[in-house]
């Protein structure tokens, strides 16, 4: 019964979404304020209904109700509770439910926090959100219904794919979707602005917090997914340029560009048309990503052709929203008046360069991802576009961007002095080069580019700190004033600096692992030893074990440095009983920011086993950098200036001279 009520709530949510679209639009056309006021109420009601529906599905998983087909296909009564819950979104139907839940959650947030928005704008934004909700609720109900019953109910479920039974999977999709779907708010704001034909700096101020929040979540989601692949797939790779990864990376690149162009619009009223276009494109890329992952078109064009219902439905959603938005843009963009002027060498100019490179990079990844599909559809010829292609093209695009990053915040708005900015970055570049030289001293023998890569990473960090240093006036004013100025800097200044430091940290991690990782593949018997990263690993033998829904074999290794035992490592292979599916559980030990990674292979005749040992220097920097970037986004969000109309802090801050923006 409860299942049917959940199902019914979803149908009601669809009806509410239609109301959320139709009535406010009618209201804005007829200038009827009471109709416009329906939007927030409908958004909140829609959120509660979808939340209820989602909770019912979760409940079915928690109590292992195998009369629900979706639960039977993806769950097992012996599965640990956390994976019963995360299993809700570990399959197609459930993940679309999560998508919808997060979409209506954002609508409800706009309804709640949008009280200071102009009436028409809020009604239009929520109406567009309602239209998107309508499309996805229809998609779920018509093609991917998770509430379908089985009769008679099977006694036991078929279990979740073991690779997905991991804490990483519990967190990764919600974070990713919060990012993906968060950009829908920017999209809706863009459409609303186009409908009204009016857009100004205030618009950018309203959009930027949503873009920042979505971007921060997407950053975290991608990093989480990368770390999950690293420890779960068992061969220590952390980024594969897999189409599914690209599907999340393209919106991230476009979203990063959007954040920066919205900054120009907010401060200088320039780049309006471009910012609106980017807001549309970013969410379009999120939709495209959903299509690529959910339609099955990636696994094989043929699989898509044999069961095309879902794929065609999402494709229709995709064409409707992207096509509709771009047509609207083409008709209305000319009505948006251009704003402030700027010289090519200026803060605006630097941000335009940032946008140029980031959008080119996004388009490059998109081209590489879609090219094989399109070519096969057109000519029947099959080609592969993989990591070597992306590393080459994407890498070449990133080099000029990374060198330019620290210049941006140091250039003045309107007209900047690039020589002066260059002089201020002398110290940062010097520190970077010294770091490169130190790396050469410690780990000589790597490729030359690796040392320049590390130098660039350190230069990015030092360059970001230079900006804070200069704005606080350290060295120019007394330390007390400098400290007060530093503390009084706006949140967005720290946000920018942290995000840019994060890129530097990630770069250092990527370069170190790529250039200096070592790998040993050996056949080992007990008491045999292998050297890796300055450690000696001794293989002590294997042990059998039993988990709730799997059996495992674990190898034990003693890790010593200079003859002294420092730690030990268990590395396992598991066999999940329900699906007879094996997984590797790599043994990982962290030393500072570096890791020792041990993975087990096949047993060999005569009682040994193949062992793979990697030394991954500075690998944690890759994800640490992403966390720092995310923190930067979060701190920027708390900048009071982003909350238009927010009351002044009650405590008057003593006026302190602050460096000009």
């Amino acid at each position, binding site marked *: 019964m409860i299942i049917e009520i959940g199902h019914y709530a979803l149908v009601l949510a669809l009806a509410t979404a239609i109301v959320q679209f139709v009535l406010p639009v009618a209201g804005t056309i007829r200038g009827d304020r009471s109709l416009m006021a329906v939007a927030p109420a409908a958004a909140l009601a829609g959120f509660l209904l979808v939340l209820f529906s989602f909770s019912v599905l979760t409940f079915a998983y928690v109590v292992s109700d195998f009369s629900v087909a979706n639960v039977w296909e993806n769950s097992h009564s012996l599965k640990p509770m956390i994976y019963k819950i995360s299993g809700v979104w570990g399959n197609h139907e459930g993940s679309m439910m999560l998508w919808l839940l997060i979409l209506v959650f954002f609508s409800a947030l706009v309804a709640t926090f949008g009280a200071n928005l102009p009436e028409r704008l809020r009604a239009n934004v929520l109406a567009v959100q309602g239209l998107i909700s309508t499309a996805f609720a229809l998609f779920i109900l018509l093609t991917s219904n998770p509430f379908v019953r089985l009769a008679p109910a099977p006694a036991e479920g078929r279990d979740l794919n073991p690779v997905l039974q991991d804490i990483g999977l519990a967190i990764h999709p919600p974070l990713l979707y919060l990012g993906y779907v968060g950009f829908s708010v920017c999209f809706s704001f863009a459409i609303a602005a186009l409908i009204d034909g009016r857009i100004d700096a205030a618009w950018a101020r309203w959009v930027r917090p949503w873009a920042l929040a979505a971007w921060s979540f997407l950053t975290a989601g991608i990093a989480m997914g990368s770390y999950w692949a690293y420890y779960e797939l068992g*061969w220590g790779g952390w980024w594969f340029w897999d189409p599914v990864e690209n599907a999340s990376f393209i919106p991230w690149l476009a979203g990063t560009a959007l954040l920066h162009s919205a900054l120009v619009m907010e401060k200088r009223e320039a780049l309006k048309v471009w910012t609106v276009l980017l807001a549309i494109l970013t969410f379009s890329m999120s939709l495209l990503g959903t299509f690529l992952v959910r339609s099955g078109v990636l696994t094989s064009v043929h699989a898509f052709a044999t069961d095309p219902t879902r794929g065609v439905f999402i494709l229709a959603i995709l064409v409707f929203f992207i096509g509709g938005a771009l047509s609207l843009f083409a008709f209305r963009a000319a009505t948006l008046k*251009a704003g402030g002027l700027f010289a*090519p060498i200026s803060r605006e100019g630097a941000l335009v360069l940032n946008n140029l490179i980031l959008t080119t990079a996004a388009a*490059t990844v998109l081209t590489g991802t879609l090219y094989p599909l399109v070519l096969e559809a057109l000519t029947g010829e099959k080609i*592969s576009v993989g990591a070597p292609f992306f590393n080459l093209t994407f890498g070449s*695009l990133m080099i000029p961007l990374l060198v330019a990053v620290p210049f941006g915040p140091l250039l003045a708005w309107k007209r900047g002095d690039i020589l002066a900015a260059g002089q201020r970055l002398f110290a940062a570049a010097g520190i970077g080069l010294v770091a490169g030289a130190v790396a050469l001293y410690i780990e000589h023998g790597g490729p030359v580019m690796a040392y320049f890569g590390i130098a660039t990473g350190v230069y990015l960090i030092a360059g970001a700190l230079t900006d804070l240093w200069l704005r606080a006036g350290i060295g120019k004013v007394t330390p007390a004033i400098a400290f007060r100025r530093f503390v009084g800097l706006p949140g967005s200044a720290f946000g920018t600096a942290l995000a840019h430091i994060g890129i530097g940290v990630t770069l250092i991690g990527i370069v170190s692992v790529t250039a200096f990782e070592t790998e040993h593949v050996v056949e080992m018997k007990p008491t045999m030893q292998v050297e890796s990263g300055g450690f000696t690993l001794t293989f002590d033998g294997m042990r059998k074990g039993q988990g709730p829904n799997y059996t495992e074999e674990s190898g034990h290794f003693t890790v010593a440095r200079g003859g002294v035992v420092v730690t030990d490592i268990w590395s396992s*292979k598991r066999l999940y009983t329900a699906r007879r599916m*094996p*997984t590797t559980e790599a043994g990982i030990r962290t030393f500072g920011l570096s890791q020792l990674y041990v993975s087990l*292979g096949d047993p060999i005749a005569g009682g040994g086993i193949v062992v793979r040992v990697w030394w991954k220097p500075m690998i944690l920097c890759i994800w640490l950098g992403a966390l720092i970037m995310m923190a930067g986004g979060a701190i920027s969000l708390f900048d009071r200036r982003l909350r238009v109309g927010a009351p002044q802090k009650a405590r008057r801050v003593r006026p302190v001279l602050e460096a000009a923006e």
Partner: protein
Amino acid sequence: MMRRLVAVLLLVLAASPAFAVNPDEVLDDPALEARARALSAELRCMVCQNQSIDDSNAELARDLRLLVRERLKNGDSDEAVIDYVVSRYGEFVLLKPRLRGETLLLWGAPAILFLAGTVAMVLFVRRRAGAATGTPLSDAEKAELERLMGE
């Protein structure tokens, strides 16, 4: 007989993810092995999704790895090995497609987009720079300016 049966059974049961490169495949010459690894990273495992033969544990990937090493041992250049593998498996095996008519757009896309973006940007800035902003000076203001400049 019994031992063989057990061995076969073990092989079937041990459906564990095997490793990519196994110790028995590794060439004695480290320089040659390094070249083999580099080549393997650019060749696709035909039965996997987006995995190179260097990363894959599929049987077919192993065959291909052994083939690459065999050719290298016979003194083939890197290009010759790639050509040979492509002649047997088709262009699909290359993770980095070669520049041909069909892949012109793929390889050209980044450069074309970047250049188009730059041109659009320059045109935009030029046009905007030429546009008048604000209100022009009145005659009185011009006279005042002349006077100040004269001083």
